[in-house]
């Protein structure tokens, strides 16, 4: 039981770790791209290609550089999460109603104030939905990462499939499914709550 709990926690933390890095880098990159928009097609195109690479292939290639273990898993999560976070940040920031920006400028906000008081709060639900997608993908990657020496619940599933032990497979599968479904449900709720359109009604 202790092992199950510790594996569940490490599954969660590896995923959260990778997505957090990607959130910090991705949101910054997304915001920067709105200021230097000629780069956006290039950056988003590149992360689109990254996203297309099959996860097992990505993990295996990364393993060649980062060795066996969790750093490889986190790196893969980071790379996969980049696209949803960058793209959602970029499009959401550009989608902020220009009258809000004008109102902000008109009230004498500085560029930083405009960013933190107007643009990011308005873009937040869409950015969050990028993070939600990333996190759910991350659970899957951590599961597969057992093949490159990662920790987490994938080990149960892997051993279970090798020995055709359904109990073992379920031991890994159930917590992962609960985590994925729970995350989807929870973050969807937060998205709806923070969405400006809904708030008004």
């Amino acid at each position, binding site marked *: 039981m202790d092992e199950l709990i510790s594996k569940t926690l490490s599954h969660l933390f590896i995923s959260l770790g990778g997505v957090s890095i990607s959130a910090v880098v991705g949101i910054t990159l997304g915001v920067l791209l709105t200021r230097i928009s000629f780069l956006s097609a290039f950056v988003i195109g590149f992360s689109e290609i990254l996203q*297309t690479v099959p996860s097992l292939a990505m993990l295996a*290639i990364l393993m060649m550089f980062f060795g066996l273990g969790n750093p490889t898993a986190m790196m893969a999560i980071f790379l996969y999460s980049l696209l949803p976070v960058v793209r959602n940040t970029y499009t959401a920031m550009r989608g902020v109603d220009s009258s809000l920006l004008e109102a902000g400028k008109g009230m004498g906000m500085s560029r930083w104030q405009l960013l933190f008081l107007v643009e990011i709060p308005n873009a937040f639900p869409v950015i969050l939905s990028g993070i939600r997608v990333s996190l759910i993908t991350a659970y899957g990657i951590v599961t597969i990462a057992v*093949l490159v020496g990662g920790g987490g619940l994938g080990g149960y*599933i892997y051993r279970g499939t090798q020995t055709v032990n359904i109990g073992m497979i379920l031991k890994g*599968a159930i917590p992962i499914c609960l985590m994925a479904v729970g995350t989807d449900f929870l973050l969807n709720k937060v998205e709806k709550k923070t969405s400006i359109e809904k708030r008004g009604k």
Partner: protein
Amino acid sequence: MSDLPIFLQRNWGTFVNALGTHLKLSFSAVAIGICIAVPTGILLTRFPKAAKKVLAGVGVLQTVPSMVMFGLAMPLLGIGIRTALVVLIIYSILPILRNTYTGISEIPEKYIIAARGMGMNGFQMLMRVELPLAGSVIISGIQLSAVYIISWTTIAALVGAGGLGDLIYTGIMTYNYSMILLGAAPASILAVLTSLLIGWLARIATPRGLRM
């Protein structure tokens, strides 16, 4: 790495075999997925209330990681290509189903009113108005689905289905980087090329009047 030519020569047969299996599996899964998902998606647009529930259900299924799904399917269906195909088909359905449904149901109402008012029956409306207008959305669902399926087919090696994943898996187990690359590089290239190809198809399939 200097003996790469020799390595390639020695493993060429294995590689071609794996690539063939990978292509066959992915292609069949997506093709069958299209045959199931497009008609179902169209049907759902006729029952919007049921559609919400069905899509939510399939959405939950989509959050289940691929390896978990393979792991769950194996004790039920056994080892081999059949298991892999079933799981891959299930996965290929969702993006296509969702895009078919939203593509059609988000067609502006004016076109539907105009089509009905001019005396099109349900089938004519579907063929002349709904499918042409939703076409690019449906194709981008197929694009997404194909990329996912190529990725998940690599994992199908776990349930003994073969494919490029087999090479990667063997490479990892034996610390053979050349073997890893022999699986990983073609799998990645295959995914990227498929995505580009379908993207291009979507563009030429878009009626000229909508391409602005």
